[in-house]
């Protein structure tokens, strides 16, 4: 259930140095240090196309496996295993030259055939990759020589390099990559104990810059308090994503720890089923948006952390505009809108609420808020698995709460078959056109317009943007603070001597 976990998929908040944890002074770090990373997201297996969950991206992306492109912690897409590339004039043919001298952990050299195999693994019928759909414009992959890959598309796809950053390049001779690995990254998998920990050892034959540490151990916890205790007792050096704001008090203001707040793309959303009454009525949706005191909600859950948003687009996406003023908190105008929509006496609806934090608390908050405008909320608690069946697959619901961690997920409003059933032909067209745009400026212009329309339509009720908080021991530096796409690059982490 990768996309529903509360771990943020992030873009950089602050581009450049401000987004990076303070760097250690030169040479005062231990080049063979063991970095112990505490996390709540244990991978279920080791293959990111086989339902391994977000934990595998955290442990393996950029560390064990690499892609043609890399989504950096600052949110930019940069060539990784690609030396150079060019697109044809019509944008339908991309030619990639691979970096020379790259080898897999097994010793085999990286060839074009491995790249073709790896992309086809994601687009394959049996693949469970969430990125499969975004690569659906690929019609063919050719390998004219060992260092060249040619990708043919059925339509322009401006996000191709970005989408390829999700595709691990795996040795085409590798077998059983659900339990072993054969990547090109700076670390190899040395040990994995299910339910407990996963260790990566430095790959001394790495083709690129060597890591600044000797070994990385990801230790997994199911209980946030146990994770914080591990940090307090020096059992772990860094916690990838703090999920309990209450616990931060133990670390802020304590010189032994560093607390960083990066940018997140995880949104808490009250998603209506826009197909069914009364939520097929835009006035009703706007009324509920105006009846929600989002500032109070965010504060009660995250204190001073987190950000208010007026649509699904976080401030770090290029197509962001501040839309928090479209439907500001205003109980009187909410009542007026309900009356106009024919619900002067209010109505009643069932809110399907996932059983884990923060959804039950958010549901109770909304229940109290909407009672003020005469709307009665019946809270129905369900498990994550039921959510998937009842809401995502069967679309059998009135309204639900969900955290959406996806990066660039405005595109879901361009798909009328998506679970929330928002269907505005203008938005559908804008989003499709944006992907086929010849230039990035054009793409940004179209998505910005789509963004404004969904906000005006109050397509969903975007409650707030989660914060992304990393806490570390003060002697550990160089870790990613935004953790975009759940990634946690370990190769730059330094531990003071």
């Amino acid at each position, binding site marked *: 259930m990768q996309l529903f976990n509360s771990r943020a998929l992030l873009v950089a908040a602050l581009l450049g140095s401000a987004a990076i944890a303070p760097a250690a002074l030169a040479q005062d770090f231990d080049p063979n240090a063991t970095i112990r990373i505490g996390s709540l997201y244990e991978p*279920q297996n080791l293959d990111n196309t086989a339902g391994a969950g977000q934990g595998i991206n955290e442990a393996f992306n950029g560390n064990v496996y690499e892609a043609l492109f890399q989504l950096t912690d600052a949110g930019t897409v940069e060539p990784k295993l690609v030396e150079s590339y060019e697109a044809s004039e019509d944008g339908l043919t991309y030619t990639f030259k691979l970096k020379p001298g790259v080898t897999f952990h097994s010793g085999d050299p990286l060839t074009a055939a491995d790249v073709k195999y790896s992309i086809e693994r994601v687009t394959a019928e049996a693949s469970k990759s969430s990125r*499969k759909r975004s690569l659906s414009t690929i019609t063919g992959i050719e390998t004219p020589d060992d260092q060249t890959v040619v990708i043919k598309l059925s339509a322009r796809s401006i996000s191709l390099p970005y989408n390829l950053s999700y595709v691990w390049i795996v040795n085409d001779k590798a077998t059983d990559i659900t339990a072993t690995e054969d990547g090109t990254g700076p670390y190899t998998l040395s040990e994995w*104990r*299910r*339910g407990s920990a996963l260790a990566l050892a430095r790959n001394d034959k790495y083709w690129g810059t060597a890591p600044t540490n000797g070994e990385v151990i990801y230790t*997994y916890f199911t209980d946030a*308090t146990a994770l914080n205790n591990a940090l307090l007792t020096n059992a772990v050096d860094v916690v990838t994503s703090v999920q309990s704001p209450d616990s931060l008090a133990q670390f802020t203001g304590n010189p032994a720890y560093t607390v960083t707040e990066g940018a997140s793309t995880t949104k808490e959303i009250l998603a209506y089923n826009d197909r069914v009454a009364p939520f097929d009525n835009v006035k009703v949706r706007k009324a509920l948006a105006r009846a929600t005191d989002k500032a109070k909600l965010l504060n009660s859950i995250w204190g001073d952390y987190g950000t208010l948003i007026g649509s699904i687009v976080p401030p770090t996406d290029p197509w962001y505009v501040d839309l928090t003023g479209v439907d500001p908190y205003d109980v009187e105008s909410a009542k007026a809108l309900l009356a106009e929509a024919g619900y002067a006496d209010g109505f009643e609806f069932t809110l399907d609420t996932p059983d884990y934090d923060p959804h039950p608390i958010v549901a109770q908050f909304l229940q109290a808020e909407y009672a003020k405008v005469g709307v009665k909320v019946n809270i129905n608690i369900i498990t994550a698995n*039921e959510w998937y069946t009842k809401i995502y697959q069967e679309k059998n619901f009135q309204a639900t709460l969900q955290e959406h961690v996806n990066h660039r997920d405005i595109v879901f409003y361009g798909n009328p078959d998506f679970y929330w059933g928002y269907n505005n032909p203008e938005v559908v067209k804008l989003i499709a056109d944006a992907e086929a745009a010849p230039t990035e400026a054009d793409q940004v212009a179209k998505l910005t317009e789509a963004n404004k329309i969904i906000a005006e339509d109050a397509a969903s009720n975007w409650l707030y943007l989660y914060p992304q908080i990393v806490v570390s021991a003060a002697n550990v530096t160089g870790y990613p603070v935004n953790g975009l796409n759940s990634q946690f690059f370990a190769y730059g982490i330094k531990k003071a001597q």
Partner: protein
Amino acid sequence: MVLFILLRLLPGDPANALLGVGATAQQIEAARAQVGSDQPIWMQFLTFIGNLARFDLGASFVSKAGVLEEIGNRMSVTLPLTILGFLVAIVIAVPLGIVAAVKSDKWYGAAISVVSQLGIAIPVFWLGILIVTVFAINLRIFPSGGFPLKGWANFGEAATAMVLPVLTVALVIAASLLRYVRSATQDVIGSDFIRTARALGSSFPEALVRHGIRNGAVPVISILGIELATTFLGAVVVEKVFALPGLGSMLLLAIQQRDYPNVQGVLFISTLLVLLIGFAADLLQRLIDPRLRGRIHS
């Protein structure tokens, strides 16, 4: 069989655990075919029973790892945790329980009863957190949680990792066990055979040791059997608080993910264990009480 059907009556599909937002209808169907959840229930059941007969518990839907192998791995944490916790509990509860019964008129006898009553009322996770706060965070004597990557191959580290969890399990069991020991002892003290033994010239402690313990032990052992059995899976809370990769946490995760092979595997093995424990408790009772032995022949 009941287990098998109940599991499948739960809403949700194991295929869901494998997929995320963005999955197409074909992907969902493919995933269901892969885990077999598209087959009729009776078909799934026959496959399961067939494999069980060969002691093949299958592989997890989610991790693809062999269920039996994974259970073995988890047992290396859960077995020591439960058994050591149990032994420590007995060491604590039996003497204290006897003292509480024999000296119930003294202040310390009463104090023991009160403290054990408190122990029963305290939730396990709270006790665990308390123990972590005191011994790991403040005193820094033992680690707050986790288990070494290499398991028992790294014996020293594994042993230290077990201390606080074992203590937590032990205190929880000891609290309830103590009450049984106390009431069993009280029954024994008031019984005819102790009075007779004393009339025949034994001192009270001598009568208690020679006749009392043996008699009091019989009901306590049946309670022990039941407690031990529930602790195997009940240790899940302790596993969570101390981040231990045990059987309980495996079961919990498997249920959340509708990972049927793992759920069935864990329940099958733990049922076997419970039966074995029950059997062992029975044997032990017969060993202690000759009257029960006699029943076999009659």
